[in-house]
């Protein structure tokens, strides 16, 4: 489209736990908080369900950034799921970095159901940050822009 500027539009995949972060994203909606439309959200019941493999699959599919978000430590609906998440993604960030994939492309955050503004802020900041980091282009044959 002619009127579209050619700013890089990062693709961000979001994996959100249902109880806190997905609800927080809902709250952002209910409160009409505006954030960039670059994120695609996948809901899981607990951030403990989210595997590094899902992150890698997202990068394989052309994601430039992945947001993993769960309940604040201590608030996990399933008591401890997010503690495992925290460990898994601490490792994953190191390994991504080791393979030359900027750590900033994988963000782990805690957003509660009431933190709509926080969710909107996180997505906004992350979109900006990934825009700075630039496209990942891991795919040999990228999907159409």
């Amino acid at each position, binding site marked *: 489209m002619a009127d579209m500027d050619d700013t890089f539009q990062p693709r961000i995949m979001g994996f959100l736990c249902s109880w806190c972060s997905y609800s927080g994203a809902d709250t952002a909606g209910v409160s009409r908080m505006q954030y960039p439309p670059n994120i695609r959200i996948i809901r899981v019941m607990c951030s403990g369900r989210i595997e*590094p*493999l899902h992150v*890698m*699959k997202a*990068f*394989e599919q052309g994601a430039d950034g992945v947001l993993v978000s769960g309940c604040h*430590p*201590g608030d996990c609906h399933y008591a*401890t799921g997010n*503690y*495992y998440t*925290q*460990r*898994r993604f*601490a*490792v*994953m960030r*190191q*390994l*991504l*970095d*080791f*393979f*030359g*994939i*900027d750590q900033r492309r994988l963000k782990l955050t805690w957003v509660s159901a009431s933190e709509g503004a926080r969710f909107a802020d996180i997505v906004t900041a992350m979109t900006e940050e990934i825009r700075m980091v630039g496209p990942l282009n*891991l*795919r*040999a*044959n990228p999907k159409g822009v």
Partner: protein
Amino acid sequence: MTVVNDQLTLILREKVHTLFAEGVADVFIGYRHGGKPLRVQPHVARSAADADQLVWNPTCINNLTSTLHKFADMRVGILVKGCDSRALVELIKLRQVRRDGVYIIGAPCPGIVDHELIARSVDPATITDIFVEEAQVMLTTDAGEITLDPADALYAKCLTCAQPTPDLYDELLGDPIAVHPIPLDARFNAAIELEQLSVAERFAFWDEQLNKCTLCYACQAVCPVCFCTACALALPRNDPKRKNRDRESVFSFHLMRAYHMTGRCIGCYECERVCPVDIPLSAIFQKAEKESRDLFGYKAGSDVAAVPPLSTFGDKT
């Protein structure tokens, strides 16, 4: 023509005879001479006659623990080096091997010679005996004695070995070997070297290296602590992504394998040894082991009772 180490080999054979005779084991997993110079191959002895083919010498590189699962229902004996024994610890921890179902003969290991490395200085076919000491590797050849620097003869992992003698064994083959003092991070040299690069340089490095990968999955097949009945990371044979060796699929496989191995890799680097295209996989698994240590203070292969770092959490972390 073939390397012998008469004394320990004979003791080993004797021990296995006894195991069979006393009914302690039905099979014994060890090494026998391979078809080529400086090469051995895994050997499963089921009889006294089989046992007499067993050898132990500084060419016995294979980590035999990866074959244990084939003998799950039998009383089995096995010969393990220091590094191999760490895999055994993980396999017991992860319920793949029952400690009471396996008789472990621990082989204090002075280091294993890398036949490709030696071939640079000596024709392997001329070597008749090898003796490895801390500071030197002595070769007896048809042309006489040759002494090599360990760095020119041994596998890299042996140069920084922190565990020449197994922790876990029922009996030892020979005397324990003292640990040579090595710098803390020496074992992770390859990884640390890569860490010094910029992210972009690292990506370029791996892009080049992984571009060679054929997705043959030999690295996974040989790994002693990869025990899944089917690997969730391996692409099916007919998957076009496997045929095309798409970059993202190759990155994904190796990165995810590194993740799966974090807190599990014991550093035998059999993967790197068998890689047909010489990808420096040890660097990846050094990184996995290093992060396991740095993030969680966890060392795989050292304690059967330790809970894997990703199966637990600390004080709210």
